[in-house]
């Protein structure tokens, strides 16, 4: 709270400091939209033959019935797949994954988890991810790859038999697909909660700065 006035240099310096580049923001929101479609239609499909002793409430499903849920799922998959592939390629090619997500060390994660739980984790520089963020963001990318692979295995178990084998057998691929969905939902809850606790991170994902 030193001064309310800012110099021209300071303005320029802040302006140039883009936290989230445009491609990250666009792909992030496209992915969010595609994910919601995939999850809601996926719950519809799950309800047709539940793996566990529960069904998802009909209010939170997409498609009206199994046939509609499948149509939504197999339409939104394109958005998810193309956007996801573009994100992976750009993330590796620009070095963003390496720069932002690595290294991830056990001691770093432990330290930041402790700091976060005691509300001592600083968010002064949003361009640098803390260890909890690195772990969660890297982890969710792996889960994203797994859910797509298990989904493809279930979609074309004859054509993509080697993918089915990767998961063991067809029923196993269903369980992998389900647990990846559960992991994504858990991530979503934490992710949204933390974004609301640190609103400037949400702003950065919308306007970039």
């Amino acid at each position, binding site marked *: 709270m030193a001064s309310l006035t800012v110099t021209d240099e300071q303005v320029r310096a802040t302006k140039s400091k883009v936290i989230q580049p445009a491609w990250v923001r666009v792909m992030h929101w496209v992915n969010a939209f595609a994910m919601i*479609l995939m999850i809601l239609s996926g719950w519809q499909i799950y309800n047709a033959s539940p793996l566990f002793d529960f069904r998802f409430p*009909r209010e939170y499903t997409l498609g009206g*019935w199994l046939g509609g849920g499948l149509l939504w799922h197999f339409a939104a998959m394109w958005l998810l797949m193309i956007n996801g592939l573009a994100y992976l390629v750009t993330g590796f090619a620009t070095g963003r994954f390496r720069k932002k997500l690595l290294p991830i060390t056990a001691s770093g994660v432990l330290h930041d988890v402790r700091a976060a739980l005691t509300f001592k984790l600083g968010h002064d520089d949003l361009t640098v991810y803390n260890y909890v963020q690195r772990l969660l963001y890297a982890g969710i990318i792996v889960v994203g790859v797994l859910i797509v692979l298990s989904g493809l295995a279930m979609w074309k178990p004859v054509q993509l038999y080697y993918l089915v084998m990767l998961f063991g057998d067809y029923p196993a691929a269903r369980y992998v697909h389900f647990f990846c969905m559960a992991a994504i939902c858990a991530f979503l809850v934490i992710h949204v909660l933390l974004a609301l606790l640190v609103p400037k991170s949400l702003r950065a994902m919308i306007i970039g700065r």
Partner: protein
Amino acid sequence: MAKRPFLIPGVDKRLLIKDSIKTMPDVTRRRFIAGGASLGALTLLTGCDVVDSSSAEEMLKSVSKFNDAVQAFIFNPDALAPTFPESAITKPFPFNAYYDLDDAPDISAADWKLEVRGLVDNKKSWTLEELYKLPQVTQITRHICVEGWSAIGSWTGTPMRDFLKLIGADTRAKYVWFQCADKDGYNSPLDMRSALHPQTQMTFKYANEILPRAYGFPMKIRVPTKLGFKNPKYVVSMEVTNDYKGGYWEDQGYNSFSGS
């Protein structure tokens, strides 16, 4: 659509839907694809109401057709379904239909004949006795239902492509269309390429025993490269045709290719 609990314990949801569909006028006698779902969040996000929108339905149908074209382009239609050892067979193999087992067709072998129609040289009908004399093969493959469950079973019968050759079918035709004895008249089209697939079978036996009533006596069509609903049971006729004649589930919105 009102938001009330859809599932009533002990009531088969498919029967429930079927009954309610019967009370609807013909034009609306199809299942709603975009309807029924509460899409509050989605409506807020997109600013448009997709719930009752027929344009959403049209969009989804075109994507589904696009998916068919992509599959036809990248996949090998002759790829073989994996086979399993006898020890992998699911016991008991589930009975599955849109009706109870008690309502399954109870066909008398003596009265039954397989009717052959359409683009074939020999349109003679076949008795079960005549069909049993054709060479048979056994396959142990995984049956995968559109609902997601699956089960491994052992099916024995005559390869479809051998029978099509025997009756002089025009294999350049687009479909083989099956009609069945199920109540409300089950039927399903099979694209010719899949009908000629080496594993596509006119099945007469399950687990080396005459096909029981539960699994489609006297004849089912086993297509291990397709979802279960493309494997008709209680078949009474087959027609080789260039016309897409629709099918029981296909007409309600399941993708007609539904290849695995």
